[in-house]
């Protein structure tokens, strides 16, 4: 199965491809970091229809075994996770995992989670050596599930600037920055990323939540807090995308709660160029295909020829505030 097979077939007449900060993808629907196996032999094939790219698990310099205790907890229309960046480290990724993923023909985006600026160069060096197999680096400034780096960085424009500058210095290719919705000012956050050279900004990672175990009379998660995703958060992430689009011209990638083509259309109307689908796959392995079908029909019925013509069309309304 090649990239051409999995994208674009079902919707003649409407062009699905999008251009995203220097990268052209066959579809605006990406698989979000952390929900897709690094081993293609495990990939449910039906999910690949409509997928424009796949984000790797959050990669760290050294292998990590992730968090102890319960890692997944269901909530109303959502899910809390506390995985804690379990991964085999960037070198195993480049040597073993990436070649197999890249061989499928589907563009791979490397999601990296440095613990601090000093880790940036050693973390990105192996990816540089991987050449064209990595179509973009997605800098994760937003993981709520680890104590070091991660979200703390992404909450302030200063932290974002420091991290993006460091990454920009050692990654010449397309650089995406994944923000945290815990950033109190989305506009400032996205501008900080733009100023320091981000080619696209992902809005956003999971929302900080918690759960209590009434039987054990303690927090469900060993780290107490965890990241909320799923349909529950969609109205929140859509608002973040709206605010980000208000502040930047850098392409935006919407993420958070997408579970239907209508959600994606809303994201595009609000100003996103592409989206990432994460927990939605937990419920529906056909989601990407359904999204591109629905989007193509909506695009056509709106009188447009390309999905990307939808981008920002919901922003013309100006009677607000």
């Amino acid at each position, binding site marked *: 199965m090649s990239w051409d097979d999995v994208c674009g077939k079902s919707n003649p007449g409407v062009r699905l491809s999008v251009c995203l900060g220097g990268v052209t993808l066959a579809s605006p629907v990406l698989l979000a970091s952390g*929900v897709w196996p690094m081993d*293609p032999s*495990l990939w*449910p094939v039906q999910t690949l229809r409509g997928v424009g790219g796949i984000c790797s698990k959050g990669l760290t310099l050294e292998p990590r075994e*992730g968090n102890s205790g319960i890692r*997944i907890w269901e909530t109303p229309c959502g899910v809390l996770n506390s995985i804690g960046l379990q991964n085999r480290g960037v070198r195993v990724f480049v040597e073993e995992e990436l070649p197999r993923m890249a061989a499928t023909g589907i563009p791979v985006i490397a999601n990296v989670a440095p613990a601090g600026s000093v880790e940036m160069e050693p973390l990105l060096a192996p990816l540089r050596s991987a050449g064209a197999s990595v179509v973009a680096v997605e800098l994760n400034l937003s993981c709520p599930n680890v104590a070091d780096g991660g979200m703390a960085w992404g909450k302030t424009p200063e932290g974002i600037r420091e991290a993006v500058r460091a990454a920009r210095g050692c990654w010449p290719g397309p650089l995406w920055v994944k923000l945290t919705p815990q950033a109190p000012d989305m506009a400032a956050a996205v501008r900080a990323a733009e100023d320091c050279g981000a080619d696209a900004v992902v809005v956003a990672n999971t929302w900080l939540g918690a759960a209590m175990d009434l039987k054990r009379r303690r927090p469900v998660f060993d780290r107490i807090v965890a990241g909320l995703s*799923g349909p529950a958060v969609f109205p929140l992430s859509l608002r973040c995308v709206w605010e980000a689009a208000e502040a930047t011209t850098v392409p935006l990638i919407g993420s958070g709660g997408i579970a239907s083509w209508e959600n994606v259309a809303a994201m595009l109307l609000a100003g996103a160029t592409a989206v990432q689908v994460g927990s939605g796959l937990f419920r529906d392995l056909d989601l990407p295909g359904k999204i591109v079908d629905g989007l193509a029909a909506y695009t056509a019925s709106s009188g447009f020829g390309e999905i990307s013509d939808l981008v920002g069309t919901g922003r013309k309304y100006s009677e607000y505030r």
Partner: protein
Amino acid sequence: MCSGTVEERSARLVARTFLGGGAARERGPLLLELDAPEIAAKSLPGQFLLVTCGEGSDPFLLRPLAVAGVRGEVLSLLVQVRGEGTRRLAALAPGSVLRLRGPLGTPFTTPKEAERLLCIAGGVGAAPLLFMAERWGGSVLLGVPDASWEGLVHHCVSRIGSSKVTVLSDDGSLGEKGNPCSFLASEKGSALLAFPNTRICACGPTGMLAALAEALPPSLPYEASLETRMGCGYGGCLGCVVPTERGRLRACVEGPVFAGREVRWHELG
């Protein structure tokens, strides 16, 4: 390249049988029979499915359930009602359509010709073991709390024959009084284990599985199927990991069947 065998498909519920007695009826276990030819054909004992338990996004996650048997195109599940999801599942009328994702996970090891299979089940943990015993022969040690589980016992007996099933109940109201661990410590139990070339497969409460890992003679191959919370079921989210001697392994890919002595039981919640 992308050779994944996991599929997600719609399946019609063709029959629902309540096995629980009296007041426990609604709690289960229930036998659900689904028309799912493709998934049934690929499923092996120890593998499981993720199953929707209703429309809408609440409950959001699919529920993991072991494949409890395959007969032609019909796949069966044994469900105990524990929370909202299984309650909804149990309330679905025959004719309803579910989404099934599977088959998932690594099955029990296929016994070698010379091996004699002993399946140790706690309650609804019987599900994968019935499939196992049906497919490969072998006997079943079934522990249940009390007489309200009579329906499950009958179901086991009807599927693999009464001579193959030893029943134990906590209160002695069904079969012998006791549980699989206490039974294996007894004379009769030791005799059972002393039989050469015995291979043990177990599924049930974590406490039982851990106790077995302690109690069983280290020479006996012992595999246990574990329960953990799951997100994706296909190895993507790492939400289902089990602490083992080889690190944190996914219950949905490397498991749910693990070498019993490899699991770090004391680290499990």
